[in-house]
């Protein structure tokens, strides 16, 4: 897991807007879960959304990923409006996510989990598979090779044929990230990736996320409670409270922002 010298620099195409969220609101009956949130993730950036429990962070994720249809607002990925698309179409455009409570295909093996996420890139039609055409075989072998590559990267090669549900929690988290990365996403959304990890595993995660950005040119949007991880890794942070954005800025600015301190520690 060392950085190769020839890695593509994150600066390639950096600075341009990748995900643009404008005036996003989500209403559930009488509850305004997300209230007029606006932010922008630029290419190569690691962007974090933080806030107290129930602040609407995961709802933002669900709106951006197409799992909820936002009440108002516009979401643009790479210049293309996506707020009206179903989630699987958004995923195919290069925006994939992990879940707060890991969602693996539990009774399937680790490798199979990685093969499924390549479904869109594989020869999925009926007849080539039934007759095992050479093209189909090549596609399957390539898929297995990619799976092996990612398993090695996240340190799960030894458990490749284990059932995913039987892995340790930290391993499940890493598998979920690998499962996203194998689709070559433009933007990786991580929903509380450090939840339930011990300090060592959190440090490993920190390194892994940095490595993904450096070597695979992926931008990261993350929700996290672990402040040491967020402050160390993020380029920009958005703080939400009761669904409303209260501050945006780099980690230092956020740490000094009186509104944020108030939200987290309460009034003096």
């Amino acid at each position, binding site marked *: 897991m060392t950085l190769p010298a020839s890695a593509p620099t994150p600066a390639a195409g950096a600075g341009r807007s990748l995900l643009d969220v404008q005036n996003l609101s989500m209403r559930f009956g009488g509850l305004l879960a997300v209230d007029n949130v606006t932010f922008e993730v630029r290419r190569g950036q690691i962007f974090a959304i933080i806030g107290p429990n129930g602040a609407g962070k995961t709802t933002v994720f669900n709106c951006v*990923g*197409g*799992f909820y249809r936002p009440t108002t607002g516009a979401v643009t990925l790479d210049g293309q409006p996506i707020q009206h698309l*179903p*989630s*699987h*179409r958004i*995923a*195919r455009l290069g925006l*994939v*996510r992990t*879940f707060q409570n890991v*969602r*693996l*295909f*539990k*009774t*399937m*093996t680790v*490798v*199979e989990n990685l*093969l*499924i*996420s*390549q*479904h*869109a890139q*594989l*020869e*999925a039609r*009926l007849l080539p*598979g*039934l007759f*095992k055409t050479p093209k189909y075989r090549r596609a399957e*072998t*390539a898929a*297995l*090779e*990619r*799976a*092996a*590559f990612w*398993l*090695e990267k996240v340190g799960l*090669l030894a458990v*490749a*044929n284990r*059932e995913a549900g039987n892995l340790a929690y930290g391993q499940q988290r890493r598998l979920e990230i690998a*499962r*996203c990365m194998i*689709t070559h996403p433009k933007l990786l959304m991580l929903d509380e990736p450090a939840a339930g990890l011990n300090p060592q595993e959190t440090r490993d995660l920190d390194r892994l996320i940095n490595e993904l950005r450096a070597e695979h040119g992926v931008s990261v949007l993350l929700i996290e409670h672990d402040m040491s991880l967020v402050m160390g890794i993020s380029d920009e942070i958005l703080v939400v409270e009761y669904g409303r954005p209260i501050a945006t800025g780099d980690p230092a600015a956020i740490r000094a922002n009186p509104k944020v301190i108030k939200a987290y520690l309460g009034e003096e």
Partner: protein
Amino acid sequence: MPRTLIDALLAAVLTAVLLIPIFGLRIQVDGVNVALDRTPTPVVIAVVAVFLLRLFKRPLQRLWASWKVPGSWRANSATAALRQTAQHPRARQALWLLLLAVAVIWPFTVSRGAVDVMTLALIYVMLGLGLNIVVGFAGLLVLGYAAFYAVGAYAYAYLAQQFGLSFWLCLPIAGGLAALTGFLLGLPVLRLRGDYLAIVTLGFGEITRLLLNNLNFLTGGPDGIGGIPRPSLFGLEFGRRAKDGGATFHEFFGLDYSGDHAVIFMYLLGLALVLATLFVIDRLLRMPLGRAWEALREDEIACRSLGLNPTVIKLSALTLSAAFAGFAGAFFAARQGHINPESFTFIESAMVLAIVVLGGMGSQLGVVLAAIAITVLPELAREFNEYRMLAFGLVMVLMMMWRPQGLIPASRPPLTLPERAEAAR
């Protein structure tokens, strides 16, 4: 102790209430006279048995817990050797070939009736394997599977009767029509989940049966369609005399005419269809499509988050599953020679579902064994035919209590990863 006694008494009373109408009273029809015949013995036996079992439940449980399988049963050299060979791919192949050889040679050594029953079992194997795609792999509960079976059967019957098309031509048509039915049903219905889907498909099965009963011009109504021709072997017919200038099987090979030929031929044809089904489904499961079915059963939201379109995947499962029912239906019509709506009731759908559940959802071998057991056992125990449904229910309850994963739970074969992982980006 008094609590156990009350509990046991209650259970005994319940048993009596349940069993008196089923076992205790029997309607005797003697000419025009109908008399009620009382036979208390089976009820008394059952009530006493339940009472004693409930009363001594605790001691019996303790006894059961203390009784262990001797270690030598599981870990002796014979079982170890068997397990070793079973894991060896070559040995496994040989085992399959041996089974196949037995299945092919077997009909020539037994009675015609036995072969006929086995042919029926093969139809259920096909149906079970087909339904296993939707229920076992894709995790969609479909209760109207007999509808697709009916479409296949009527398609062959109608086409053969009206247009004189051969079985071999009709087989793909029947499968295709059933698949189309599945597709059209799936389009609006597959956005439903779980119980709702089960109810809608249940309704669809009933609608199909009613249509068969009432579309007289197409299906012949309750009388059904008769005189369905049997399949031929490359144009060789199995009748005593060939129709309009064809050749018969026994003349061509210079054999004496025997009705057994046709029966054995149907069996072998059924076997071939089952093998084809097994092969196709086995391939499907290793394909991206089959993997996607299972993934969808595991977690639909995760599937969507990875770019898999759930609607397309569900539709493909239902369509393919319906196609296999169509093949089975065409074969069924060809074997029976006469079909009517009575063969496609809800009981039929429930039967196939029971096969899938008993066999172990998602397990091919389990489904094959369960289908054979469910069709062959009632034939072996004909004198208990009246209690068939009772026994059936009992088996289902016991299975759900002790082995909910089925007789042979699905297992997943390990995949070998390529050596040169660095080659991939």
